């Protein structure tokens, strides 16, 4: 019982990551109709915003410590971060410790800018081009972004821990008298994703923005006839999507150390989630994210793996196939979006 509850919890938590990544993608892919293979790269850039902030906070000056030696036998150069020097080790240490949450503030403007630049510089010429061309250009872009990150940060994963205060475990079962411990940061991630998802939903639901963008995707020409500058709104949408992708990345760093190809690792999965959820449907993408997350968690239980060996390897795809075959447009897809 505990095990099942734990896996549900775990699934929700995995699912929240999937949902958050898919949310950003579906804004561009499901709503603007651009097959954006660079979405994973945006997620990755978000994560590297956290890494960069951590590095910036750790910028240090060196003092020579004669009592110790380095690997070549010379006197050891000890590094002290400037922040620690300025704010004192206590305060400075705390600032460095909170690098990841602080990176949220740092990442939003950067990601919005990246999204803006990407849309204005490249994508805007591709709305009317065939999907195949969109794939080629965004894939090329993804490779370039990824290689740039690799050039500066290397290929190995980089540890970016959560703040001390948020990195322990919490017993979620205590309230109901059970023993279900779970990492605090993952709970934070879950709540954070709910917050972002809710925010985006209400923005698109309670303003006409969503409707206009949807209309613009279906028929740009006519929307222009009605006096609406759709290009501007597409750019804004792209900026939002990039910011969502980036935030998903920032918050993910303590869960798994970021590396330059993490975007590609998530790319296929996020496309699957969006399509299973149904093209053009935000709730669909979120629902599919949680569904696949939970099923994936269940599939990795030993009890299930022993019945169907290897099921955890393919569960996502099996579920995707079943859903797409039983429901023509995924869970909640709209008609006519990317069906030809």
């Amino acid at each position: 019982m505990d095990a099942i509850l734990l896996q549900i919890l775990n699934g929700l938590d995995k699912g929240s990551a999937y949902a958050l990544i898919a949310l950003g993608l579906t804004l561009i892919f499901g709503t603007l109709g651009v097959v954006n293979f660079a979405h994973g790269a945006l997620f990755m850039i978000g994560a590297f915003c956290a890494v960069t902030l951590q590095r910036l906070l750790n910028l240090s000056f060196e003092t020579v410590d004669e009592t110790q030696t380095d690997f070549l036998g010379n006197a050891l150069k000890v590094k002290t971060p400037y922040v620690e020097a300025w704010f004192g080790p206590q305060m400075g240490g705390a600032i460095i410790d909170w690098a990841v949450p602080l990176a949220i503030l740092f990442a939003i403007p950067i990601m919005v800018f990246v999204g803006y630049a990407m849309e204005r510089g490249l994508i805007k010429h591709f709305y009317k081009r065939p999907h195949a061309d969109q794939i080629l250009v965004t894939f090329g872009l993804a490779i370039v972004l990824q290689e740039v990150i690799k050039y500066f940060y290397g290929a190995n994963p980089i540890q970016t821990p959560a703040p001390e205060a948020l990195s322990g475990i919490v017993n979620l079962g205590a309230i109901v008298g059970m023993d279900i411990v779970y990492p605090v940061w993952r709970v934070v991630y879950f709540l954070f994703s709910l917050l972002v998802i809710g925010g985006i939903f209400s923005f698109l639901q309670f303003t006409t923005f969503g409707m206009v963008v949807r209309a613009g995707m279906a028929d740009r020409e006519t929307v222009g006839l009605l006096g609406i500058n759709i290009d501007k709104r597409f750019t804004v949408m792209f900026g939002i999507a990039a910011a969502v992708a980036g935030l998903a990345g920032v918050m993910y760093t303590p869960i798994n150390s970021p590396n330059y190809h993490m975007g590609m690792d998530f790319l296929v999965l996020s496309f699957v989630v969006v399509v299973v959820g149904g093209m053009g449907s935000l709730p669909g993408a979120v629902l599919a994210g949680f569904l696949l997350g939970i099923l994936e968690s269940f599939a990795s239980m030993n009890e299930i793996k022993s019945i169907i060996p290897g099921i955890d390897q393919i569960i996502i795809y099996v579920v995707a196939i079943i859903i797409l075959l039983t429901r023509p447009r995924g869970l909640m897809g709209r008609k006519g979006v990317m069906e030809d």
Partner: protein
Amino acid sequence: YTNEPTGSSVTLGFNVPQTGPYADEGADELRAYQLAVEHLNGEGDGGMLNTFSSKELQGNGILGKKVEFVTGDTQTKSDAARASAKSMIEKDGAVMITGGSSSGVAIAVQGLCQEAGVIFMAGLTHSNDTTGKDKKANGFRHFFNGYMSAAALAPVLKNLYGTDRSAYHLTADYTWGWTQEESIAAATEAMGWNTVNKVRTPLASTDFSSYIAPVLNSGADVLVLNHYGGNMVNSLTNAVQFGLREKVVNGKNFEIVVPLYSRLMAKGAGANVKGIHGSTNWHWSLQDDASKAFVKSFGTKYGFPPSQAAHTVYCQTLLYADAATRAGTFNPCGIGEALEGFEFDGLGNGKTLYRAGDHQCFKDVLVVRGKENPTSEFDLLEVVEVTPAAQVTYPIDHPMFAGGALGSCNAG
């Protein structure tokens, strides 16, 4: 024979991952190769040439021919690695291929070299199969393997954690993971541990939480992570996140073991490695003359200490050059003969034997632990035990290495 060098130079093929997850490890290997070539050609400070027990190498290239090299990208894919190796053989006339950072690639390229008639000096490959069921007469491995890791670790674990332990294995679901899991489980069971569960995790996993969560209630008190690279970083990070290190099970502190460590990856896992044991082929903090000489020339040139991968491929290059010199030819069969049964010292791992029967090196294995108070970004592991070669040597017909045949050397 294939690609007999006719001019004044000889070309070696350095086939390492330059893209993909192991690109950094590959880059470090390339650095070591360049250093080795310098030393062979008599440039630089000579490095381990000075400490190597065989004194054949004069710093005038190999057999008087200047050493040149070509590089390629394996992408950590067997297909791409073979394509790259083939281009070195067919286009650049390489007489020897070396490098690599994973067992799948090593085995695939080893097979190719066998067929093409050139020598393959494996880089980082830890699977038992490389010199087990997939061994080849033209291939040689300096790196240790899963069995040797297990043999070295077991006594240390016994000392630290006792004989009454229940282990839970998480294993990367491919050949290397399986052979390591088999080796470790066998070794720990032999000393009285009980294996609670062996769970295979998909290669593509990035988040291991759903595999870690069940460990909490499984009754196990040791978690063995048969993961390497990014998988290892993530699974270890996840395990620590779930509070496994603070847990007390069966009245004992919960422990995590990472049988195959690499410093580059330990860095990715950050503070999570502290106090966690594992094994490694070589570490820069070793204080023997050879290791010191190597660290010095590498560190002076590049500004940081070499990784175990760098050390391995440096040794492989020297060993190849030495064998060619001793054999007086670049003919793979001659070189193979010179390497088979070759005993040497002065390359940083103590006395070492290239066993004739399976082309596996036998040497001391290091048991290391994540350091509690690192003084620098390189100072992540500390050596807790140097397990002597004798203790990790196994008979050539050991069942974990059964199947396959060395075959006979192929000169093309």
